[in-house]
C-alpha cells in the first residue's frame, strides 16, 4: 500500500488541506486505489503548503502548493506514482531549504504520522526517556546542563540549572509546565512541533519529570491553536494507553501524567508567572519574583516551567548525548534553534539550524527576500517585543548575546520581514497599542506607559511637536524598560526605540539625538 502524506499542520489546513484530504479519500474509495492517506506534520516549507508527498521506490516525492479541487487532475497525471507535474518539488531532503538545515528537535516533524507511537519509536522516539530512566535524575540534569541548552521561550536561561533547582527544592509535589502560549507574532515553532511530533513534547516533559521528581505536567496551550489542542490531547491519551505516561512510566517506578489546559486569549499569559496564575484559575497577572517558580511555582510547589521547544529538545539531547548538541552553535548559544520566517517573505516557514547564521543569510538566502518582490526594509526579530533591525545590521549573527549587543533579542526566534512600504512610525504606535491591549495591569509603567506612549506617538504622527514628543517617548521607554514588572512592559521599548533609532526618516525626518548607551 502506497502512502500519501497530506499535512494536518495548521499552515496546510488554513490553505485547504482538510478539503484536499477528503478529495483524495473519495478518489481512493471510488477508484479502489491501493493508497493509505497519512496526515503528517509540516516539513516547515510553509510557502509550499499544502504540500503532499507520495511514497515511491525512489523515496518520498513532494508536490505543492496543492489547492482544493486539484486532487483528480493530480491523480490522473500520475502523481501517485511520482510522475512529473508542474507542482512536483521532488524529494524534500534534496530541496535547498531543507538540505541546509540541521534537524535536531524537528527531526521527525513532517516525516512521521504524528499520532502513531510506533512511528515515533521507529524514528528514534522514547530512546531519550528510556536512557533518562536508566541513568537517573542527577545524570540527566548533568547531561542537560552540559548540553548548554537554554530556554527557547526567549529568556535563554540555562535549562539544566532550572531543573537542578527544582530537583533540590522540597515540596509535597512538583510540576512540569510546558509554556505553549506562543503568542508572539512571527512564531509558530511550538505549534508545529505539537501538531507534527506531539510525543516529542510528551517525552521531553516526562524526562523533566524523571530529572526533578515531578509527577504532573501541564501544557498551557493557547486557544488560538485549535489543531494543536486536538493533536496534543489525542497524543496524551494514546501515550497513557501505551504506558508512556501514567503510574509507571515505561514500566519504571516514575509516575507522570500530563494535562492540556487551554488559555483564554491573554498574551501576557506567555509570561511564566502569569501563566502559573492562569493555570491556578486566576487572572493572569504577573507575580513578583522572588520566589522563583522553581522554588514556589504552581500552587506554591516547585515547578519547572519551560517553553515547548526547550522541553522538546531534551529527548534528542538525552538519546544522542550532550556533546553532540553542545558541539553546535556559537558562543554561549549552543545547539540548534528553529528559526521561523514569516510576514512578507518569499520562502516562509521553519528552518532549524545551529546558532550563528547571520540575519542577512537567514532573511535573504534562506527566506529569499520579500514575497512582494520589493526590497527588504526592516525585520522584527523576537515577536512584538523584539527590535526592528534595518538591513545595515544584517551581519548580526543569530545568537542571544550578539542580538543583545545590538539592542535586540532573538526571543522565540521568529523573524517578521517587512518590505519598503512599511511605515515604522505606525509600527512604533502599534507596539504601544499592543502593550496597552495586553497589559495585565499590575504595574504602572506598563499599564499607564503603554497608553501614554500610544497617545504620544499619535501626536508625532499628527505632526504635533514631533521633536519634543520624541524626547518624551524615549523618556517613557526608559521608565518602562527599567520599571516594569515583566517583559511585556519592559521590552515594548525595543520595537519602539529601534524603529526611532534605525528609521529616523519615518519620524518626520527629524532624527532623534540618540544617547550612546
Amino acid at each position, binding site marked *: 500500500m502506497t502512502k500519501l502524506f497530506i499535512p494536518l499542520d*495548521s*499552515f496546510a*489546513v*488554513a*490553505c485547504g488541506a482538510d478539503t484536499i484530504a477528503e478529495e483524495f479519500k473519495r478518489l481512493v474509495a471510488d477508484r479502489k486505489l491501493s493508497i493509505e492517506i497519512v496526515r503528517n506534520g509540516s516539513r516547515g516549507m*510553509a*510557502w509550499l*503548503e499544502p504540500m503532499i508527498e507520495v511514497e515511491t521506490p525512489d523515496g518520498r516525492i513532494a508536490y505543492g502548493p496543492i489547492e482544493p479541487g486539484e486532487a483528480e487532475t493530480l491523480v490522473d497525471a500520475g502523481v501517485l506514482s511520482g510522475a512529473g507535474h508542474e507542482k512536483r518539488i521532488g524529494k524534500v531532503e534534496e530541496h535547498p531549504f531543507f538540505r541546509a538545515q540541521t534537524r535536531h528537535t524537528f527531526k521527525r516533524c513532517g516525516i512521521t504520522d504524528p499520532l502513531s507511537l510506533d512511528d515515533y519509536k521507529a524514528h528514534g522516539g522514547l530512546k531519550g526517556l528510556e536512557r533518562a530512566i536508566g541513568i537517573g535524575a542527577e545524570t540527566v540534569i548533568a547531561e542537560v546542563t552540559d548540553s548548554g541548552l537554554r530556554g527557547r521561550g526567549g529568556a535563554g536561561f540555562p535549562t539544566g540549572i532550572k531543573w537542578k533547582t527544582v530537583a533540590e527544592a522540597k515540596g509535597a509535589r512538583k510540576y512540569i509546565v510546558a509554556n505553549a502560549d*506562543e*503568542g*508572539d*507574532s*512571527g*512564531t*509558530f515553532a511550538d*505549534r508545529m512541533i505539537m501538531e507534527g511530533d506531539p510525543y516529542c513534547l510528551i517525552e521531553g516533559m516526562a524526562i523533566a519529570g524523571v530529572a526533578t521528581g515531578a509527577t504532573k505536567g501541564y501544557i498551557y496551550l493557547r*486557544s*488560538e*491553536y*485549535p*489543531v494543536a489542542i486536538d493533536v496534543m490531547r489525542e497524543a496524551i491519551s494514546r501515550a497513557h494507553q501505551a504506558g508512556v505516561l501514567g503510574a509507571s512510566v515505561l514500566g519504571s517506578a516514575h509516575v507522570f501524567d500530563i*494535562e492540556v*489546559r*487551554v*488559555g*483564554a*486569549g*491573554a*498574551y501576557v499569559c506567555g509570561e511564566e508567572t502569569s501563566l502559573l496564575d*492562569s*493555570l*491556578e*484559575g*486566576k*487572572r*493572569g*497577572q504577573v507575580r513578583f519574583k522572588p520566589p522563583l517558580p522553581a522554588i514556589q511555582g504552581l*500552587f506554591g510547589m516547585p515547578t519547572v516551567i519551560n517553553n515547548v521547544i526547550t522541553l522538546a529538545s531534551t529527548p534528542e539531547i538525552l538519546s544522542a548525548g550532550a556533546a553532540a548538541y553542545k558541539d553546535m552553535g556559537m558562543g554561549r548559544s549552543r545547539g540548534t534553534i528553529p528559526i*521561523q*520566517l*514569516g*510576514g*512578507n*517573505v518569499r520562502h*516562509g*516557514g*521553519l528552518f532549524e539550524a545551529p546558532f550563528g547564521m547571520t540575519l542577512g543569510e537567514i532573511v535573504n538566502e534562506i527566506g529569499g527576500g520579500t*514575497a512582494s518582490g520589493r526590497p527588504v526594509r526592516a525585520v*522584527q526579530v523576537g515577536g*512584538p517585543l523584539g527590535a526592528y533591525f534595518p538591513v545595515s545590521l544584517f551581519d548580526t549573527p543569530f545568537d542571544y548575546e550578539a542580538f543583545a549587543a545590538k539592542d535586540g533579542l532573538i526571543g522565540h526566534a*521568529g523573524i*517578521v520581514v*517587512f*518590505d519598503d512600504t*512599511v511605515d515604522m512610525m505606525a*509600527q512604533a504606535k*502599534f507596539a504601544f497599542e*499592543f502593550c496597552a*491591549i495586553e497589559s*495585565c495591569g499590575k504595574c504602572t509603567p506598563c499599564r499607564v506607559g503603554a497608553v501614554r506612549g500610544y497617545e504620544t506617538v499619535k501626536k508625532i504622527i499628527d505632526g504635533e511637536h514631533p521633536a519634543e514628543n520624541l524626547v518624551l517617548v524615549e523618556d517613557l521607554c526608559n521608565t518602562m524598560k527599567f520599571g516594569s514588572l515583566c517583559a511585556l512592559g519592559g521590552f515594548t521599548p525595543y520595537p519602539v526605540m529601534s524603529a526611532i533609532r534605525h528609521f529616523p526618516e519615518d519620524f518626520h525626518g527629524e532624527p532623534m539625538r540618540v544617547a550612546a548607551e
Partner: protein
Amino acid sequence: MVFQARYDEAEAAEIIGEHRHLEGPLLPILHGIQERFGHVSEEAVRQVAAALNLTRAEVHGVVTFYHDFRKAPAGRHVLKVCRAEACQAAGGDAIAGAIETALGVKFGETTPDGQVTLEAVYCLGLCATAPSAMLDRRIVGRLSEAKIGALVEEARL
C-alpha cells in the same frame, strides 16, 4: 458556529461537576460554560462562584481579564482576523479593512442581523501563510481580496 442557548442551571451544574475535581478548575469551567451557552452570563458567574467557594468579584475578575470570555452573546459566527505584525507585513491591514467593509461592521461589533461578530486576534501562528483569520474554529490563511468574499459569505450563512 457559536452555540447560543438559554442558561440552564442544571446544565451549568453538570459542567461545573465535570471539572471541579481538577486543580485550578475555574478556566476549564468557564470555557465549558461559554462553549455551551455562548457567553458567561451574570447567572453563570453567581453559580460558578458559589460552587467553587469564590466571591463573585473573583470570578467576575477572571471572566473580564481574558479576551476569550464574553459577558454577552456574540453573533452566530465569530470571525477573528489577525492584526499582528506578520499579517501587517503581508498586507493584513488592507484585508482587515476590506472585511470591515464587506460585513458593514467595525472590529468588536456584531452585524445588525446577529450573524457575525468581527474580532481582532493577535497571532494565529500562521505567520508564513499570512494574512490569516479564524471563522469559529476554522483557520484560514493566505487571505486575499478575492478570498474575502467567500469567507464573508460563509460567515453570513
